[in-house]
């Protein structure tokens, strides 16, 4: 165990950004989250600071005894800078909630960022397992191993009929949410996305923006997850989401084929213009950058753009965010300066990829 070090973190991409795995152009990454709470304590939002501190001590103690965290990094959210908190959120290691509530909140993660544990989030314990590409099985195994190893160390809130007890009844039972980060430009352009969202909702799955609950859907990136956690065993939840995602991938492919059939030249133009802008522009904001990256990604998927690896596209999504840009420059930047730094970062990344 050692303290979290922002420089070490930004020095390499996280496990989920590798760009490996099945369907890696459409599905960026897979994630499994398991929620647990300690017995005999109030839920996080109902605790005073003393109780939060007690939960933190017990949880950290239990977590650091596990084999998964034999090598680990620990961050006390209240003691690191707001930029470092932002950095962790941009890498999906902590939720955005941790940016605003940081006292007695903690994070433990493996150096390769494949497993993380948030302490005192909405639930006392939020375990996350990550995998690159469409690989829900690996993401689940990573989270589940930590849960298995931590359980004997802690007294968890459990009910014989209702399963693991959580602050919000939507997570009750398995406490599990599995999700993929998925790129759906075909369905967005063909305007079929709303129909899909509606259907998914009815089939007990949900879809949200790039940074989870309440965040915008930018650059055609979505998070698709199960929304029911009670009454279905973990392996079936994983299997159901997998089947759902396979269907969505098939619709996305069909939508892309249709688009290319109807407007081949127009689409090729859109892809190459986007590539040109990213390769040569001198200032670009996040929203525009995400939209251009999406178009290039579509071009990579269609075999038009050959010299940009998926891994580079994945890294761009993270490294063009404000805290990452500021870390790289070693100074705080105002929004205009960030746009300039962002354009420079993207130019370098694409130039390196082309060589």
């Amino acid at each position, binding site marked *: 165990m050692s303290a979290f070090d922002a420089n070490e973190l930004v020095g390499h991409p996280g496990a989920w950004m590798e760009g490996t795995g099945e369907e890696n152009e459409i599905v960026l990454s897979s994630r499994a989250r398991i929620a647990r709470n300690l017995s*005999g304590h109030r839920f996080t939002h*109902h605790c005073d600071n003393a109780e939060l501190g007690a939960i933190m001590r017990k949880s950290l103690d239990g977590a650091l005894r596990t084999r998964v965290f034999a090598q680990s990094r620990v961050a006390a959210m209240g003691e690191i800078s707001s930029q470092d908190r932002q950095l962790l959120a941009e890498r999906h290691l902590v939720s955005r909630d941790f940016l605003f509530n940081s006292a007695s909140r903690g994070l433990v993660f493996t150096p390769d960022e494949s497993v993380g544990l948030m302490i005192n989030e909405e639930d006392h314990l939020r375990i996350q397992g990550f995998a690159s590409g469409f690989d829900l099985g690996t993401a689940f195994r990573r989270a589940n191993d930590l849960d298995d190893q931590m359980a004997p160390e802690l007294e968890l809130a459990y009910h014989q009929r209702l399963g693991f007890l959580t602050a919000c009844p939507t997570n009750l039972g398995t406490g599990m949410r599995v999700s993929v980060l998925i790129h759906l430009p075909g369905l967005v352009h063909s305007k079929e996305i709303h129909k899909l969202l509606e259907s998914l909702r009815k089939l007990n799955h949900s879809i949200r923006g790039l940074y989870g609950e309440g965040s915008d859907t930018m650059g055609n990136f979505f998070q698709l997850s199960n929304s029911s956690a009670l009454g279905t065993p973990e392996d079936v939840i994983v299997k159901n989401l997998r089947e759902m995602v396979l269907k969505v991938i098939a619709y996305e492919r069909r939508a892309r084929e249709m688009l290319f059939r109807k407007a081949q030249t127009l689409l090729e133009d859109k892809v190459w213009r986007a590539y040109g802008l990213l390769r040569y522009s001198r200032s670009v904001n996040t929203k525009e950058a995400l939209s251009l990256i999406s178009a290039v990604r579509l071009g990579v998927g269609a075999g038009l753009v050959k010299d940009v690896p998926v891994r580079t596209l994945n890294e761009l999504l993270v490294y063009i965010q404000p805290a990452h840009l500021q870390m790289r420059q070693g100074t705080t930047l105002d929004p205009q300066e960030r746009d300039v730094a962002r354009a420079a970062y993207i130019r370098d990344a694409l130039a390196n990829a082309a060589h």
Partner: protein
Amino acid sequence: MSMLCQVCKKRPAKVHYTEIVNQSMVAMNLCVECAEERGIDVHKTGNYGLGDLVAGLIDTAVDSEAERITKVRCAGCGYEYSDFKKIGRLGCPQCYDAFEAQLVPVLRHVHGSTQHAGKKATAHSERAALRDRMAALREDLSLAIRAEDYERAAAIRDEIRGLEAQVEEGS
């Protein structure tokens, strides 16, 4: 209580449609599994094979009868059911026992189930859960005695004894 599937009579009916049998219309109420067995694609809609006929018909009804009771208080943390309705979070693990009657329809709506399946707690956590449950029951017991409801008090006492026996077996 939600309607049960008329084929398996076990799972809740979520797919409702009309079938023509011998030239008369028959209303069908099936669970997703049985509907799929009968070749109904519950994932079908429009061009996209998701939901189709069925999509608009999936049960979203929530019993409102239990929602009227909002004044119940959790002995574990002092939370009231109305707090949950305001905040959307429960106060502590014991709230699930305190507000069970109100939560059942909510769970059915959100999860389509009220019974956990899957991974279980370790024996260690199971014992902790029993201890929590006993603490809640002892609170109920003293309330029942104060209210001079001796019949209820006796029932609670028996339940506590049963749990104590379980804890001893497990240790």
